[in-house]
């Protein structure tokens, strides 16, 4: 392939950021996310072990399920003995907990927060609303399946799940990370167009960059 052809393809691959005004487009990245292949076998195993030992989740209560995160942090269910802690911003955290139902307005914020998180990142979907809509399946404002908008690694069923169930969910996530199966971030990068299509279908006023690091 010629060098010009490669440049042409790269130009086509760039994100348009059409939701932004002309002035602000140059302030944001137009590069697509790329999937990260695993390193060599033993190093990756060691890294995965390390990742599983310190899960920092984003303290963003997107629905009613977030009330179950508070008792997790206090003395009775003390989550910090598992090496898990809450962080205030997406830039510092590695686990995103979707706490229950997500309205169309919240999905916009969820997508933005998820994309700002540093990799490797994982998503736990809490409650039956995230799985199939739960009791809000016929609502005009609440989405039914969160996994069409961001990739989900672990589901915790229940309405609402008890803190014990959330601890079990975290342990399940640790298992998945250690075996290298929690690759939601790569799934997002590979099926980027499909996820963006779904997101733009419900977020009608798209006034943010297409992919924001």
């Amino acid at each position, binding site marked *: 392939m010629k060098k010009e052809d490669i440049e042409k393809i790269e130009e086509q691959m760039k994100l348009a950021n059409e939701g932004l005004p002309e002035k602000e487009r140059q302030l944001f990245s137009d590069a697509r996310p790329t999937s990260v292949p695993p390193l060599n076998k033993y190093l990756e195993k060691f890294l995965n072990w390390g990742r599983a030992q310190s899960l920092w989740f984003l303290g963003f209560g997107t629905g009613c399920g977030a009330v179950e995160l508070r008792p997790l942090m206090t003395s009775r269910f003390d989550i910090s003995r598992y090496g898990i802690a809450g962080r205030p911003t997406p830039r510092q955290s590695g686990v995103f907990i979707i706490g229950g139902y997500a*309205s169309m*307005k919240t999905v*916009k914020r969820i997508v933005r927060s998820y994309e700002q998180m540093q990799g490797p990142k994982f998503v736990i979907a809490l409650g039956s609303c995230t799985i199939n809509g739960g009791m809000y399946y016929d609502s005009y404002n609440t*989405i039914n*399946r969160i996994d069409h908008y961001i990739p989900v690694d672990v589901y915790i069923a229940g309405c609402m799940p008890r803190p014990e169930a959330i601890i079990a969910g975290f342990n399940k996530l640790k298992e998945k990370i250690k075996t290298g199966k929690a690759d939601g971030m790569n799934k997002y990068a590979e099926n980027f167009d499909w996820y963006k299509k779904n997101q733009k*279908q419900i977020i009608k006023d798209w006034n943010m960059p297409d992919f924001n690091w």
Partner: protein
Amino acid sequence: MEQLLNRIKDKIEIESLKKRDDLYFINVKEEHIIFLLSYLKEHEGFTHLAFLQAVDFQEYNLFQLTYMLYNYNIKVNLGIKVMIDREKAEMVSIHKLWNHAWQYQRELHELFGINFPNSPNVNESFVLEGWEDIPPMRRDFDTLKYSSETFYQRPGRSTNDPKEYMREKLYKNFVEPPKIRKEND
């Protein structure tokens, strides 16, 4: 309270309804609403606007607005109901009387499509960002149809009638009790 209602009845035409000792309702015509609200606020001590809400009466082609007032001195809730046209839904803004009423009016504008001319920020979106359909709290809006068209359903969802399901699972030998009352009663 009865004296107060009589005082209002001297001035304008109203229907009053007593629900409890501390809860009364007044039906009033659309043209008298501003007079009544400002009279109650300035002269009778109903200084607190608790909420402003709407009910859709699709059968009569009307919206019912309820202004809920509260008097701190005599500790009485007073609801003022007014019917407005549903096709050309428009109501006088009361943000000059109660400053916080603009937020209720913005909500009603978005969820019911009622216009409040000159109300501040009334066109800003409240919970629905970029909504293109008819206002969702109107009763001719089909939420299930909208949900199944817009969002992705996960297959395998099933529902049971709770009465039938419990009878089948728990009370198999359940016998329907005989009806003591006659049908005509």
